[in-house]
């Protein structure tokens, strides 16, 4: 205070010593950031570590990608009718993927041993499923309430009738032991999802329930299932399930696996849904209670619609995991897509050095396409939800 009091007028005219009288010399202009060079400088070469990583990645790409393309595309055999076409010949010293083999086997990979005359039923099933998935995935679709009914009630019922057959309406029975390939993979994955989501929601609600018995059961189920590998669950389902039902019932092998996969996935879905439920503010429950809505009405109209929406990306991620895990059902003797590829390897008509590699490459591409598609979708929904929050 005393400093200010003793400041004279003359000093004030000059201004205090800490105020610069002269303007600063301008800084040098920043290095040009635009264009490809600028982008690379900023993103790939911005520091020692970054430069090192860039070089390592580039080396990896150079090492892996060209041989892969050479094998999968350039040297590949696209047409042919037997092993002779995929063997080394004087004119073709290097043989790549034998796609001719895949084209020849594609129906086997898709339908397994499903009777040839009835395969149209599988195609119809694929079409119905595609409609359902497309409708579900389209966030602004009209009548999403009908879509729910279609996806969770109509589709399962129709698929059951179509695939298993129902003689009264002229569809001969097809035993599940004849099912195989992509059909089984898709059935296991979609049954897993269609059942695991509702069961998971119930378990998630149970885990937050005020009733101790319900809560205890939910926690025990979730923690137990999450604590053991899927293979164990599958073994248990296929060995133990028959013990719980009457002998005459003797559940089908595929059904046992489906129960196992659904329960396994349900435990994971429950945790995903629980995270969504926890994100709903307390005020929403109170607002609902205050207008007189009951517990189930509050859940149905207020909490679940909001919780599930923010949970979609995580549900899709869980689905990706489930889709890949379906390959494990071979362990209880079910002929899924990967098993058909495995079986195709042994066909003497196509026995060549590249047959196995081609089969596995095809399987890898199949899983990659589906999982990458789902992953992109999850990203898209995430971005949409983030944009919605800013509204």
């Amino acid at each position: 205070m005393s400093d200010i009091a003793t400041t004279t007028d003359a000093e004030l005219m000059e201004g205090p010593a800490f105020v610069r009288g002269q303007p600063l010399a301008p800084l040098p202009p920043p290095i040009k950031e635009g264009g490809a060079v600028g982008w690379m400088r900023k993103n790939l070469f911005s520091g020692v570590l970054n430069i090192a990583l860039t070089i390592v990645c580039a080396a990896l790409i150079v090492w892996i990608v060209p041989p892969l393309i050479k094998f999968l595309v350039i040297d590949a055999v696209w047409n042919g009718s037997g092993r002779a076409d995929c063997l080394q010949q004087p004119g073709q010293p290097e043989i790549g993927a034998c796609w001719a083999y895949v084209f020849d086997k594609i129906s086997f990979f898709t339908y397994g041993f499903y009777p040839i005359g009835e395969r149209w039923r599988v195609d119809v099933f694929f079409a119905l499923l595609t409609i359902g998935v497309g409708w579900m995935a389209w966030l602004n679709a009209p009548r999403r309430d009908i879509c729910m009914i279609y996806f969770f009630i109509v589709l399962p019922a129709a698929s059951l009738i179509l695939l298993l057959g129902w003689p009264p309406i002229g569809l001969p029975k097809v035993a599940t032991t004849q099912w195989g390939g992509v059909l089984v993979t898709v059935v296991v994955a979609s049954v897993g999802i269609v059942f695991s989501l509702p069961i998971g929601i119930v378990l998630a609600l149970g885990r937050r329930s005020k009733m101790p018995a319900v809560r205890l059961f939910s926690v025990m189920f979730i923690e137990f299932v999450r604590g053991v590998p899927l293979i164990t669950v599958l073994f248990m389902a296929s060995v133990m399930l028959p013990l719980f039902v009457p002998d005459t019932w003797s559940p089908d092998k595929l059904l046992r696996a489906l129960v196992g996969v659904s329960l396994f996935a349900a435990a994971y879905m429950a945790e995903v849904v629980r995270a969504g439920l926890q994100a709903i503010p307390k005020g929403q429950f109170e607002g609902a209670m205050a207008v007189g809505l009951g517990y189930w009405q509050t859940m149905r109209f207020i909490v679940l619609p909001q919780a599930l929406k923010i949970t979609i990306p995580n549900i899709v991620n869980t689905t990706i995991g489930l889709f890949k895990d379906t390959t494990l059902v071979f362990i209880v003797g079910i002929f899924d897509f990967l098993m058909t590829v495995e079986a195709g390897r042994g066909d003497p008509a196509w026995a060549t050095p590249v047959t196995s590699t081609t089969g596995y490459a095809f399987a890898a591409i199949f899983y990659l396409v589906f999982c990458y598609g789902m992953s992109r979708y999850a990203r898209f929904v995430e971005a949409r939800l983030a944009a919605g929050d800013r509204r």
Partner: protein
Amino acid sequence: MALANSALKPAPLKTGVAVDMIGVHKWYGDFHVLRDINLRVTKSERIVICGPSGSGKSTMIRCINRLEEHQKGSIIVDGTELANDLKKIDEVRRDVGMVFQHFNLFPHLTVLENLTLAPIWVRKQPKKEAEEIAMHYLQRVKIPEQAGKFPGQLSGGQQQRVAIARALCMNPKIMLFDEPTSALDPEMVKEVLDTMVQLAEDGMTMLCVTHEMSFARQVANRIVFMDEGQIVEVNEPKAFFDNPQHERTRLFLSQILH
């Protein structure tokens, strides 16, 4: 409009006493939040509740529709005693409307859906009738043109008016307000208070936690002052402001009225 007129007036009480709290105590664990609350609110009475932060005002009015449970004493809402009977709790909640500080609107539903959800599913009103009533109340709170929007697209004052309309659509006998204006920008406070004044003029029984003292002066029949979980003083507005009986009331008023 083909609406039954009775649907738009406050529903009549079965008894002359809207809310009767007798010796109510409540604890959060060891913490004694409400200590021996005795308060009788008669038909069409407007009660304003004030007091320092943490004094238990919210807790007290939230006990009236069982958003909080009391452990001792009894609370009788229009002849129905609140106990562990879920049926009775639902009954009371249907007849008691509540407006919150942070609105608690349902963000995924449009304004109109926010208003009609409970009448349709709780009161079992036909959808068309529920929508007509909802539009009527939206007109009363002066935002009928916002019916198709989502809550997130409205201003705070508009959201709070929607929240009031949402409570009114259930045709309540009693309205509870928990600091309805304290989350609002100053210029929006008036529009919400005006709505509440109008409601009071229609004869609604109201319990309102607020620090809007001009509102209290204008509307309240009685002002309740709470501190540390107790009702310290209850008085008519004039006497309350001009001649507070207790030291704590005087201190509080001096802080709040500057």
